[in-house]
């Protein structure tokens, strides 16, 4: 890849615009929503963006089956309902789903391990699209491979749908540690580092010079409370994705925000609290206040109790 990316010295107009939108989302919360009412709650609570999908990860995990791109009619309804950017997920490698999402006017496409992968060898060539992509990563090499393919934003994978933040922490610490390690290497050592990380040399060199990824680095996967959001921000995340944490009650049951005012209120309180915690991640006084205001938390599933074969994070490479 000959072009350089990031906010400076950028050659490609397309990449600059893609990374530009990711820049606008920094410091905010992107919320998974399954219907128009949830999208409205997210916007009212101060979300910077919503991710339109038919089932949040906790439900996909509980119900099984093939998880695909959301129905176009649902995505269109959500686009109509809110003024903030709308994201949607495509299966790993499923570039036709991505083409459809771009055509629908989705602002960001998440090539996501939460859906059932469509290709076991290839991720989507994201340079071929005008719409920006976000991709998950567990380590620096994976992040840089996605960036080489054209991703304009990286998010830690964590373990989606669990409400257990342990893997989001592990992946963020891993990426930050590997970036720090590159900054102390000499120029000659960077070639071997590129081989070790299985990532393009040019991108390894950019990280070694800047000490950070050339695109924004957000966090996702298991974030369920204001404290979780603050933890990820303090560990170096530039914004937060919340999936099942806001609208789920039990393992596979969402809060009934359309018919039950009390459950709607609970979802609103969780959403608002996580938004405030993400902005004031370094202010324990405010974090204590908002944590107190939350009226409930998703029950969750300990990530350590999940069998290796059932992990979503190992999808993609």
């Amino acid at each position, binding site marked *: 890849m000959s072009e350089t990316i990031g*906010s*400076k*010295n950028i050659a490609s*107009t397309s990449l*600059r*615009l893609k990374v*530009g*939108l990711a*820049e*606008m*989302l*920094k*410091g*905010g919360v992107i919320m998974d929503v399954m219907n128009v009412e949830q999208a409205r709650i997210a*916007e009212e*609570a*101060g*979300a*910077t*963006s919503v991710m339109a999908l038919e089932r949040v990860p906790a439900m996909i995990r509980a119900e099984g089956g093939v998880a695909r791109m959301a129905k176009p009619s649902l995505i269109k309804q959500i*686009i109509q309902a809110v*003024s*903030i*950017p709308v994201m949607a997920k495509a299966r790993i490698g499923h570039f036709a789903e991505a083409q459809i999402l*771009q055509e629908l*006017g989705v*602002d*960001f496409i998440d090539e996501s391990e939460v859906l059932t992968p469509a290709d076991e060898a290839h991720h989507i060539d994201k340079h071929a699209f*005008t*719409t*920006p992509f976000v991709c998950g990563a567990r380590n620096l090499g994976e992040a840089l491979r996605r960036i080489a393919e054209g991703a304009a934003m990286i998010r830690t994978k964590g373990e989606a749908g669990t409400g257990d933040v342990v893997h989001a922490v592990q992946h963020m610490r891993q990426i930050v540690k590997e970036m720090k390690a590159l900054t102390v290497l000499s120029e000659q050592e960077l070639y071997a580092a590129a081989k070790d990380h299985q990532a393009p040399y040019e991108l390894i060199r950019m990280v070694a010079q800047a000490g950070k990824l050339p695109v924004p680095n957000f966090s996702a996967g298991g974030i369920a409370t204001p404290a979780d959001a603050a933890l990820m921000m303090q560990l170096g995340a530039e914004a937060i994705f919340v999936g099942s944490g806001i609208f789920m009650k039990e393992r596979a049951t969402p809060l009934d925000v359309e018919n039950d005012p009390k459950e709607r209120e609970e979802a609103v309180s969780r959403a*608002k609290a996580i*938004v*405030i915690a*993400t*902005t*004031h991640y370094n*202010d324990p006084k405010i974090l204590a206040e908002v944590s107190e205001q939350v009226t409930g938390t998703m029950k969750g599933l300990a990530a350590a109790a999940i069998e290796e074969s059932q992990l979503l994070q190992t999808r993609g490479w």
Partner: protein
Amino acid sequence: MTEPRTLPRIGVLAIQGDYAAHADALAESGATPVEVRKPEELEGLDGLILPGGESTTMLKFLEKRHFFDALLQFCAQHPVFGTCAGAILLAREVRNPSQRSLGLLDAVVERNAYGRQIDSSILTAETSLPGGPLEMVFIRAPRIAATGSTVEVLARRDGDPVFVRQGKIMAATFHPELSTDRRVHRAFVDTLLATTGK
């Protein structure tokens, strides 16, 4: 070496958005950036930048802890520069949809008026700033649909104002913080120095 001088301290509203890019741009333009997340953090600042991001998110925070009133009071007295979402916050009237705003800039601003992300663009156009055409990065940009008589238009796109000044207030619907050209931030710092007499 020139004689040591205290650089102006300019706040950047850091609720959410590309405030870090603005802070870098200010540091490169002869000012000391200060992140502002709470109303009390406005105290002692010489000016303020309202960055790009989501104006709806920023408003949620401004509606708490008397932040809106504190910001209104600060911006009425000090130089302020809003880009994209920041320009929306400064406007007299906001459309598509209608939402609350500070009302300090005599302009009507329409949100997401050029379309969605696929319609975002980078253009180069003439401005009133010396130094030739200026690169302008538009991301899900708002449109300035109307301006009052005291608003000076510094640049246009297809006839619509995209960069304006009204006394101590500057606003742009594009993102100068995402370009390497620092003329816009320098112009803001110069305006600030001229009005504060620093």
